């Protein structure tokens, strides 16, 4: 029997190279530290940290989360320590890690996004992810993600000012996500990531009140997976830039589904809350799938769904 070629999990997302295709989804992994007692963070393809704004943000009132069938709604409201707080409190630890560090950034204006991206580039961050799709804050964020013109202007403006890999996180709360994928590509985004949470709502019928103080929130978890897989598949056929697929991944089978639909890498989100070891289990599961199906590189699976 011929000797099986060694599996290489490495993936290239344009100029961003990851040791394996599994990363964390922003907002579900904090700044990494809390997970270090459960997993070796250096084994991850990349860590995408919780969204950072220029100034600290307090976040929304409670209740901020509630569980729904096979999913959860959240309206955290982008609580974060701000850029300075992040640099002081979180960056020193992240700098000690041997994995790619990607910072999700958000602002109320194009200028704020530019300031964040420039500062983070100068600090040696591996990539920034433009958060233009958080459904839980009134200002900024989602406006850039759902208005094609504002979306295009933001990406172009940031692109002109930084060289580091630029990821744009797409909102699923639009009629045609392909349109936004194309705009992002044309405006100079190196990578697109999708999907952010789906806007949702849940009502306590006894109290006749919304379950979240914010009334609506973002739905995540296995409940949204089929929607996310469909959107990744659509975008893969519409653009050439690499795609980071996410939305309800809890197992390696889920991750492979996204890769077959067109993702070059995947991000694990809500699953981190259920089992802090999820990412590592998924990396190992992808490896054994590749081994038993004689796949040498994850890129040989990307977009290979037979339709």
């Amino acid at each position, binding site marked *: 029997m011929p000797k099986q070629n060694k599996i290489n999990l490495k993936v290239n997302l344009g100029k961003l190279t990851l040791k394996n295709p599994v990363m964390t989804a922003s*907002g*579900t*992994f*904090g700044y990494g530290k*809390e*997970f270090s*007692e*459960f997993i070796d963070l250096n084994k991850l393809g990349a860590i995408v940290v*919780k969204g950072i704004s220029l100034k600290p943000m*307090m*976040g929304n*009132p*409670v*209740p*901020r*989360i*509630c*569980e729904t*069938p*096979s*999913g*959860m709604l*959240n309206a*955290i409201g982008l*609580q974060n320590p701000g850029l300075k707080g992040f640099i002081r409190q979180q960056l020193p630890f992240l700098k000690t890690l041997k994995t790619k560090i990607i910072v999700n950034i958000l602002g109320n204006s194009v200028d704020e996004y530019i300031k964040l991206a420039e500062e983070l580039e100068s600090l040696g961050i591996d990539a920034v992810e433009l958060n233009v799709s958080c459904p839980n804050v009134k200002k900024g964020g989602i406006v850039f993600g759902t208005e094609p013109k504002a979306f295009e202007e933001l990406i172009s403006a940031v692109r002109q000012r930084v060289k580091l890999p630029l990821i744009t996180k797409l909102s699923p709360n639009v009629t045609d996500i392909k349109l936004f994928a194309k705009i992002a590509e044309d405006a100079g985004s190196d990578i697109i990531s999708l999907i952010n949470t789906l806007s949702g709502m849940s009502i306590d019928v006894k109290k006749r009140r919304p379950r979240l103080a914010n009334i609506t929130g973002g739905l995540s*978890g*296995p409940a949204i997976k089929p929607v996310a897989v469909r959107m990744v598949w659509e975008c893969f056929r519409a653009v050439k830039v690499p795609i980071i697929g996410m939305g309800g991944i*809890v197992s390696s089978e889920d991750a492979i589904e996204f890769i077959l639909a067109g993702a070059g890498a995947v991000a694990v989100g*809500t699953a*981190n*809350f*259920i*089992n*802090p*070891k999820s990412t590592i289990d998924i990396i190992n599961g992808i490896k054994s799938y590749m081994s038993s199906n004689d796949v040498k590189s994850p890129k040989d699976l990307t977009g290979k769904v037979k339709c």
Partner: protein
Amino acid sequence: MSRLFKATVKDNSPLITDHYLLTLQPLEKIKRPSPGNFFMLSVDDSLDPLLKRPFSIYRSTAGEIQIIYRVVGKGTTILSNRKAGDTLEVIGPLGNKFPLKKKQDNIILIAGGLGIAPILSLAESVIPPAPSLLKAGIKRPRLKDKTNKMMPHLFYGARTKKEIICMDELKAIGIDPVISTDDGTFGKKGNIVNVLKKFITRNSSNISNYSFYACGPEPMLKALSPLSAKHKLNMHVALEQNMACGLGTCLGCVVKTTKGYKRICKEGPVFPIEEIIWE
């Protein structure tokens, strides 16, 4: 010692209507929990319900975890159907603990409803159970300060007589609680905070020698707040809130404090009462 582990259900029996006592045996050595800590529990392996649920500790040693829970929804209904021999996934112990002064003068405990579970575990950590109880296999956390001989006072409120639990265990450590029920079926009629109020008024001259620890429904804790402020009490309360991760990353379980939002799972669940800004 990982804080993510599997545990076997040793026993899961109803205590009173809708209330269960769950005894778990971790399949590996776990970190010793302290009173105030909690565990996140998967009620089953399915994706619905998706998240683990937080439960405060009733009694726990390195080899056994006991939790008292009330069936309130889908998750706890599933949990109540788990049988001896079943395996559950657990994360913990999590959160901070009730802070005890090294030289404690007097301890006042206030429990409302199921809040008695963590309050009893705190009481047992300062008062050893009677030898008969130890012989029966009930272990207790080590008593750190052996010169510490104070007997905590316990104020215990419940909705009705039928929902009063843990009386034998309290007796075993020599605590004779002051009890009130909302419907007057046992002890004094009415709110336990009003009963405590009278006690404080009677002892107002030396009240600064007391440390107060409370756990119970939010309206009870909220009612304690002005009382504590008025008499400048040294009071800590254990809070609860929906949680997704229990590890401090989702920022779902925060509470508004004088120092901004704090995470109940990480900086809490025990907070100085004067820090809390009640909504």
